[in-house]
């Protein structure tokens, strides 16, 4: 049995920033992550981030990751790797399995859940053939493991993850045969689609994958046009010669632990599904349990980091490490920074969904 003041579950951008703020304030923090290296999804993000200077615009994801790791080392934050949190209750008892064998109970005074998200699957004949994989899996393969999952790729989904990974597949030397999206409009930022487009990759809106074809693994795919009621138009089928099919149809918050602990949820499709209710300080409906990053609604790494900071500051403040005045000031500053990322036609939707979440706590 081990005691800590703040336990942070998940060492991605949200978790690391939460731990850094908590430690800076003076609290004893323990970060627990199931991987052999911290950083979550950051190290596979090799593109330059948007935003302004205070959001580290122009810096690439993996470079931000390196900075966070350096800072964590300097602050001597305790990080347990290869450690999976398998249980959490409302009294903030954590059940952790280390190195797949050793089971340890951790008792924390505050818990910050920053477990991230999982990629959504879609189902079509052949969806389970080897060669069909999440876009994030392909991103992990090329940018972390430095291996191409295939040479000719079909990307299903044109949101930012779909177009970013398409671009990164091109950079790694693959051919992207097509990007399809069932919606009549492309989802990702225009600057991302434009750079993939000028590399010669065709985009098909109102199209979806009908089936993957192959005996032992993907040897081709059939795409089809959808009519206004999203029904396949017979005769519009097109065969594509591909060996890999990447699925980029969205992410869902990884929220089992918050369910276990008894947090209340709300279903908000714009944020990826069921999201734990939380207030402006990122505290859930269970006192002392906070959330940050993708688990509190799917956004991006920049917003995850600032949410993590808010959670870290407020968890430490509730333990008495930061006085109320300073806590408010720090929180407001971070909110301002967050809101500057949540405006414009893309951010507005997320902001209004996030605001809706707050109204459930009577706080809008």
């Amino acid at each position, binding site marked *: 049995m081990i005691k800590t003041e703040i336990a942070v579950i998940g060492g991605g951008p949200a978790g690391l920033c939460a731990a850094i703020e908590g430690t800076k304030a003076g609290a004893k923090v323990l970060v627990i992550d*199931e*991987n*052999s290296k911290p950083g979550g999804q950051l190290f596979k993000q*090799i593109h330059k981030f948007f935003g302004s200077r205070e959001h580290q615009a122009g810096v*690439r994801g*993996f470079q931000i990751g390196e900075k966070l790791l350096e800072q964590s080392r300097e602050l001597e934050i305790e990080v347990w790797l290869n450690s999976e949190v398998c249980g959490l209750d409302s009294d903030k008892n954590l059940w952790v399995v280390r190195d797949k064998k050793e089971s340890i109970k951790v008792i924390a005074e505050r818990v910050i859940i920053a477990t991230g998200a*999982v*990629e959504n699957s879609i189902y079509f004949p052949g969806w*389970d*053939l*080897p*060669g*069909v*994989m*999440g876009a*994030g*899996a*392909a991103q*992990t*393969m*090329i*940018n972390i*493991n*430095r*291996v*191409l*999952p295939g*040479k000719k790729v079909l990307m299903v989904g044109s949101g930012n993850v779909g177009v970013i990974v398409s671009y990164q597949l091109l*950079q*790694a*030397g693959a051919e992207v045969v097509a990007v399809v999206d069932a919606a009549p409009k492309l989802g990702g930022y225009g600057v991302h689609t434009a750079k993939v487009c000028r590399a010669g990759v065709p985009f098909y809106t109102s199209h979806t994958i009908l089936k993957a074809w192959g005996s*032992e*693994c993907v040897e081709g795919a059939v795409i089809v046009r959808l009519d206004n009621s999203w029904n396949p138009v017979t005769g519009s089928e097109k065969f594509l010669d591909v060996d890999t099919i990447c699925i980029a149809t969205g992410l869902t918050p990884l929220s089992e632990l918050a369910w276990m602990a008894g947090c209340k949820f709300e279903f908000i499709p714009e944020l990826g599904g069921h999201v734990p209710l939380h207030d402006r300080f990122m505290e859930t409906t269970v006192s002392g349990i906070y959330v940050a990053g993708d688990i509190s609604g799917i956004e991006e790494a920049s917003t995850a980091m600032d949410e993590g900071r808010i959670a870290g500051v407020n968890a430490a403040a509730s333990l008495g490490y930061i006085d109320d005045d300073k806590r408010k000031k720090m929180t407001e500053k971070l909110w301002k920074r967050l809101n500057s990322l949540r405006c414009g036609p893309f951010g507005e939707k997320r902001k209004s969904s996030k605001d809706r979440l707050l109204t459930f706590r009577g706080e809008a």
Partner: protein
Amino acid sequence: MLRVENHVVLGKIQRGRKVTIIVDGEKVEVFEGEMIAAALMASGKKVFRYTKKHGKPRGVYCGIGRCTDCIMTVNGIPNVRTCITPVEDGMVIKTQRGLGEWRSDTGDD
């Protein structure tokens, strides 16, 4: 060539020394420290196991240890998630059928 040797943003690939693993009885040269799934993919292997019920092929799906599609029998231990398990010299890896079987000896059959 499936390995991304040089990359405009990430630079030259950095890797461990060459080691040998045995995949379904065949020797394969890989690099120490890389994930089993990546090493197998680089060698062109895509089918990692066959399902229990219908014997359908499976390969890497999530790449981050969540979906268990990539499980194989490694050194006699079945159901090892190869996408998050690094290779070691002399590792014996087998395409898994169904739930696999525990074996105390790690040799081939």
